[in-house]
């Protein structure tokens, strides 16, 4: 006597989840190109990333609108409602992560064609970026599998990025008296900062995984009330 109903609605919801999480793949690709542009001081590639951000914004707008329509027409409740709320957060984070890649890419022309770069600092930024890409992939897997433990592990992974960011800061302080090198280091600090925030966005997605599964929202880490 139990029969499945609302099949179309369920299919639509699954399609939108795949589309929202697919946004994370777009971001991961954008971050990969951003790192390449930083490594090779490739201004053209950086411009490509900036132009390509329209795709990420387009995905955000498209899925966001479809979710609003679903809310208006299907009256989702319980797990479906939590999933839709979480997807809206995921999309916002996807859009922010895309913008952070753009922020980094816009810095690349500012440092000039042959910048007085510091190899160690560039290496740190590339490591941060690679680690952040791993976080993005892990956030996607945790969401798709509804794996709260994997989502919570993002905090540990994010600590690595935070530590690298602090190392960048220390390196910038010790960069020396040369005005050009100091300017370059300050610019690169902004890039490091943008990548660090991108990793935070991945952690925020992890928090949404816990919300979908448990129905309770908990910040994994609370910047205003840090644990000692």
């Amino acid at each position, binding site marked *: 006597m139990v029969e499945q109903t609302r099949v179309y609605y369920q299919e639509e919801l699954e399609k939108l989840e795949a589309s929202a999480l697919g946004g994370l793949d777009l971001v991961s690709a954008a971050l990969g190109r951003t790192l390449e542009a930083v490594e090779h001081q490739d201004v053209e590639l950086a411009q490509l990333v900036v132009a390509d951000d329209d795709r990420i914004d387009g995905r955000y707008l498209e899925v966001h609108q479809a979710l609003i329509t679903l809310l208006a027409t299907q*009256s*989702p*409740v*319980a797990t479906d409602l939590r999933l839709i709320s979480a997807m809206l957060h995921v999309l916002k984070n996807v859009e922010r992560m895309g913008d952070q890649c753009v922020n980094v890419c816009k810095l690349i022309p500012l440092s000039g064609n042959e910048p007085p770069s510091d190899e160690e600092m560039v290496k740190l930024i590339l490591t941060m970026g690679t680690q952040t890409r791993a976080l993005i992939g892990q956030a996607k897997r945790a969401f798709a599998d509804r794996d709260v433990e994997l989502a919570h592990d993002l905090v540990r992974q994010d600590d690595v990025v935070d530590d690298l960011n602090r190392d960048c800061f220390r390196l910038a302080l010790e960069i020396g008296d040369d005005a050009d090198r100091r300017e370059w280091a300050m610019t690169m600090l902004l890039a490091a900062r943008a990548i660090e925030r991108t990793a935070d966005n991945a952690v*925020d997605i992890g928090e949404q995984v816990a919300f979908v599964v448990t129905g*309770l929202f908990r910040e994994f880490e609370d*910047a205003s*009330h*840090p644990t000692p």
Partner: protein
Amino acid sequence: MAQDESRAGTGREAREAAAARATIAVRPEEFQHGRDIAREKVFELNGVEVLYSGVSAVKDISMDIHRNDVTALIGPSGCGKSTLLRCLNRMNDLIPGAEVNGELLYHGEDLYGPAVDPVQVRKLIGMVFQKPNPFPKSIYDNVAFGPRVLGRKDDLDATVEKALRGAALWDEVKDRLKSNAFGLSGGQQQRLCIARCIAVQPDTILMDEPCSALDPISTGKIEDLMIELKSEFSIVIVTHNMQQAARVSDRTAFLMVELDADEQNRWGRLVEYDETEKIFTNPADRRTEDYVSGKVG
């Protein structure tokens, strides 16, 4: 959110601002479902079973219904929600072969005790039905009917006006009180039935799908009315419209049909009963989840 590395400022101003925020901020752990304060119980059901000619319609229902709450009963057709509603004011007594077992307390007293007068019960616990059922009389006489039967004839005009105002109908009918009630629209007729119900000053109103025959505007008016009326009365509503339960009720009970091993007999059973917000955002039982999200019929 994750730590924002740029906001590591430790100025006095920042510290003071943080202290001010801490005093007003609601920490997430303080959020919890449910109201902890003790609520006055109107009905206490313990292992209630209703049988028609010896066959169970609902079984093993245990729940408390609280004062000044709107309590919604939801569930698929045949799950016994109307049966359960009707045993709350002994309407099932009127059906030959109907039998109620278990304990059903009303304000702590056995509703089915030998000394209890069913007519007195129905005076205190009024009922509004699916289809508006005004008497073939004037608007005024419909509302005045109950008080007249009960011998409350003093100041009848004031009683009628109060009841019509309470049912949010006064402004629409004050100039045609002597007109036949059948001249009203469906929504107005249903509000007239609510006025007729509250004119005898009950303590609880039972509503059996009160909006299923009404258009969305009339439904909206009845729903607003329920929210207004709950400050004075306790309301129990049976509805097929889950969004209506979500909109108007404080607590929701989900019943579903259960079958015996050889699928010969079926009866209704209470699956989950909780705060409405909990039922519609994070129900504890998978069957509730599937029903409220419309995944199973």
